[in-house]
């Protein structure tokens, strides 16, 4: 199969440097939360707008409370979505709830939007017997088959070619669905990103590549991540539809993703969206941004807080009020705290979860290994309090266990 276009021949020597591919940013809401002149309102209906906003509020509360819990030593690790709620939730809201989401790890807002319960969040964070991952992954590695949210995997970018493959399966099954994959601008440097975009256009799959360009890959600023005009122009190299959007503008993110979904599902055109946003929090509970960026820079971005922007828009439409805001914040804080207390008290997953799900059936060798481990725990129960209790042996509590 040769190229469909005959190359144009020129006789003047000219080397191009990519400045031809600078992209504008699509935005509808200004930083104060007012629609830009000429933009028609509303672009979201009342119910959906409120569903989005409540998911954003819940995510903010969840992140604040759980980071505090981590600082108190109640939780081993946490990672916030703070500052990126509009990007994640605005995009999710533009999809069908049956579309697959293959996220990186900072997209808890997508789950909140789809109705993942507070208890489901907490059970995963505390790795207890009701954790969706059966206590096998660090906190924030959520997954839900019911909500079409692929379980998170720590290695960045591995989900990107997987999303292309998943979407190819949706195309073969002709089920009218697409896949969205989220990742950061740091992950976009991985080979998996480039492999995925190329395969997606070559095979014309219904996938949306959603890059949250939040300015930092842990401490590495975007200017040290790439020399080009962001991530978006890479799409041209793969002949992919692309749009850059203000990631803190929920209306623009929603509109861009809605159109991307239409192209993906109706025409099998994959789309790259680059949402320009800012990671207001640290990379994770193990990170301290004061070592690599200024308070001043953070303050400037706090002024562009996506939640504040959407709230202003909603209040101007009389779709939301300060009273409602206070009520919901109170409800969410209460729900999170009560749910956390319940999750902390639950027992760990049973000992056999060490060997199940490696294969569809437990192999004889794994059974032998578990039996040997159990015999060892019975000899030294005080050294393995969780395992001992799982075997019904009474041992003193260790710190942090109820």
């Amino acid at each position, binding site marked *: 199969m040769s190229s469909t276009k005959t190359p144009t021949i020129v006789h003047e020597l000219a080397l191009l440097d990519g400045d031809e591919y600078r992209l504008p940013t699509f935005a509808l809401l200004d930083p104060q939360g007012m629609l830009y002149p000429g933009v028609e309102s509303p672009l979201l209906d009342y119910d959906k707008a409120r569903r989005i906003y409540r998911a954003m509020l819940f995510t903010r509360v969840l992140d604040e409370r759980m980071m505090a819990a981590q600082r108190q030593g109640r939780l081993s690790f946490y990672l916030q979505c703070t500052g990126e709620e509009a990007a994640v939730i605005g995009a999710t809201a533009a999809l069908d709830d049956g579309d697959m989401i293959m996220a990186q790890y900072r997209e808890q807002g997508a789950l909140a939007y789809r109705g993942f319960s507070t208890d489901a969040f907490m059970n995963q964070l505390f790795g207890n017997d009701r954790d969706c991952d059966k206590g096998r992954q660090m906190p924030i590695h959520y997954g839900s088959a019911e909500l079409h949210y692929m379980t998170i*995997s720590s290695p960045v970018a*591995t989900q990107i070619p997987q*999303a292309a493959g998943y979407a190819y399966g949706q195309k*073969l099954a002709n089920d009218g669905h697409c896949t969205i994959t989220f990742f950061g601008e740091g992950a976009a440097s991985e080979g*998996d990103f480039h492999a*995925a975009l190329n395969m997606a256009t070559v095979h014309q799959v219904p996938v949306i590549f959603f890059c949250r360009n939040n300015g930092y890959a842990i401490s590495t600023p975007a200017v040290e991540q790439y020399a080009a005009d962001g991530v978006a122009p890479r799409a041209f190299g793969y002949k992919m539809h692309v749009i850059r959007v203000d990631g803190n503008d929920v209306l623009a993110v929603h509109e861009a993703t809605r159109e991307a979904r239409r192209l993906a599902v109706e025409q099998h055109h994959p789309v790259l969206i680059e949402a320009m946003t800012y990671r207001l929090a640290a990379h994770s509970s193990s990170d301290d941004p004061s070592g690599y960026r200024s308070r001043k820079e953070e303050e400037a971005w706090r002024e562009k807080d996506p939640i504040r922007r959407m709230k202003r828009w909603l209040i101007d439409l009389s779709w939301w009020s300060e009273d409602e805001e206070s009520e919901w914040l109170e409800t969410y804080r209460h729900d999170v705290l009560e749910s956390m207390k319940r999750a902390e008290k639950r027992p760990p997953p049973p000992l056999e979860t060490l060997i199940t799900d490696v294969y569809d059936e437990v192999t004889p*060798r794994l059974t032998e290994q578990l039996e040997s481990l159990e015999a060892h725990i019975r000899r030294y129960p005080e050294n393995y309090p969780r395992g001992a209790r799982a075997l019904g042996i009474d041992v003193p509590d260790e710190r942090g266990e109820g």
Partner: protein
Amino acid sequence: MATMNMLQAINNALDTAMATDDRVVCFGEDVGSFGGVFRATSHLQERYGKARCFNTPLVEQGIVGFANGLAAQGAIPVAEIQFADYIFPAFDQIVSETAKFRYRSGNLFNVGGLTIRAPYGGGISGGLYHSQSPEAYFTHTPGLKVVVPRDPHQAKGLLLAAIRDANPVLFFEPKRLYRASTGEVSEADYQLPLGSADVLKTGDDITLVGWGAQMTMIEAAVEFAEEQGISCEIIDLRTLMPWDVATVVESVVKTGRLVVTHEAPLTGGFAGEIAATIQERCFLYLESPIARVTGLDTPFPLTLEKEYMPDQWKLFEAIKASIEF
């Protein structure tokens, strides 16, 4: 029954799998209309269309990443890596993703439908990068199954079982035997069990264990040994992960002697795992040290390939040394 070489048997297995389940999809570099550089996927695109048998761009990490997602969606991908030597760009997708998909998601998601096919092994003047046997990297990764066939009949039955198994399988094909190994193969749809070794020949004095192309070396060495009056038992492990410990233990309890062979380098090779397990289980039955006949701890050579290979003469020497210990 028909006479087929191993490539024809593999092609027949893929054809059978695609005919019996329209979720089966075959892809990789040059796999489409060309039918693969070895022709393992010949005519599949003609028969099942471009959507189910297609070329991919030249990007192994993309092929396996795409295959992981496709399997998670519920399709049954059979991805080809053109040479096992080129599987390493996909190592992260296989080791971090394929192998852990079910476990890390608490069984909410899995890529059990996935099979990765890759020609492996030396003896074809392929040098460093067309000769390697990378199976031990993958047997060290729980969650994967690793399968290696020795002849056309085995290749068809094991490949069909691999494609239909509920777990991801790496299927390493001995390319030295692609055309060299021929035999009677049923045209019917049949499967051979995974995780089960095959005792090719029973004997009393010594047990020989191998897989894939090494089985031809074992068979040649056993001919020499039997001429000397040494009664040999031959076991083809077939599945390396999870491997059939019981069959090897039973044999060594009887013979008291064991030689394990593979083309891959000695140190860290899968023969070490077998030797360790067998000495644990059969310590009091052993009449001599367990011997390993393998490649050298070097990259795979070119001009001196014949010297490097763990061939029938090296195996025969190991058998004699074990008997005379």
